[in-house]
């Protein structure tokens, strides 16, 4: 495909990202701008519920965001992990890239960095994400990511405590098994 080119994972609702990023490139924006603009388009459109605010709630019903952006010319990287209460994750990652010598900021400290850079703090939950979380709780907190704890995480909600005999034989990484139904990013 002749440049400028944008490719990305997924189709369907995600194609807003390619359209936005390609439009940026054809309007003389940089490739970093294009990636940021494409990612932000998906964040704003909550692509498939797996990008941006109001999706993939944690056990505490909170939506947190992960993002990174990488410059292929300099190999400079900016990233945020478990970013709380800020919608524009890839833009915050861009700020990490542009204005720090670090690679990744996480959690509340990433939120503080974002606020110091002018990003608005707001609740990332939506009615839909709250409903998802409440349904999950009513379904005995299934699926979840706990292993080797009591009560049995395959049938009960927490709080959990470790089994006296240590990690369960089903721990991912031991035999490669039991990963079906664990969900994905």
């Amino acid at each position, binding site marked *: *495909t*002749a*440049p*400028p*080119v*944008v*490719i*990305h*994972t*997924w189709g369907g609702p*995600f*194609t807003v*990202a*390619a*359209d936005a*990023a*390609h439009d940026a*490139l054809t309007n003389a924006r940089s490739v*970093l701008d*294009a*990636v940021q603009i*494409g*990612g932000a388009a998906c*964040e704003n459109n909550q692509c498939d519920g*797996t990008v941006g*605010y109001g999706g*993939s709630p*944690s*056990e*505490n019903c*909170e939506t*947190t*965001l*992960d*993002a*990174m*952006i*990488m410059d*292929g*010319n300099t*190999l400079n*990287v900016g990233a*945020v*992990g478990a970013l709380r209460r800020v919608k524009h*994750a890839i833009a915050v990652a861009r700020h990490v890239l542009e204005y720090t010598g670090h690679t990744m900021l*996480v959690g509340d400290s990433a939120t503080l960095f974002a606020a110091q850079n002018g990003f608005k703090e707001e609740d990332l939950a939506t009615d839909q994400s709250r409903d*998802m*979380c409440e349904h999950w709780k009513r379904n005995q907190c299934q699926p*979840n*990511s*706990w292993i080797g704890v009591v009560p049995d995480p395959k049938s009960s909600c927490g709080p959990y405590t470790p089994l006296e005999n240590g990690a369960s034989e089903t721990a991912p*990484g031991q035999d*490669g*098994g039991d*990963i*079906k139904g*664990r*969900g*994905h*990013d």
Partner: protein
Amino acid sequence: TISLVALGKDGSMAAGTTTNGKAYKIPGRVGDGPIAGSGSYVDSLVGGCGATGDGDLMMRFLPCYQAVENMRRGMSPAAAAEDAVRRMVKRFPDIQAGVVVMNNKGEHAAAASGWHFTYSFRGQGMNKTHVVQVDPI
């Protein structure tokens, strides 16, 4: 998760990922998305890559770093993507993963495991984004 790679007319490249991660995660969990080499990776001298899937497993393999390095060693984007996915499948046969790869000439391909994956691309002269279906290996 969305992971993107952009190639400019001047040959410059960038990549990025943004995601809200896995549903019902234990608070504090961070997946593969923001990990360089896992969620995405790019070197303008070679090409770039974006990935999605079971982040708790994928971040152990740095599939995008692997795919770009595969291209650096001469593989096509298709072979590079397939090799990166096969390395994960070898240890985790049921893994859900999708890897999309583009070299610095604009040639692109993808590979997947555990699901029918899709990826999108739009280049010079295209009036809309095209979506490509990818069967699992």
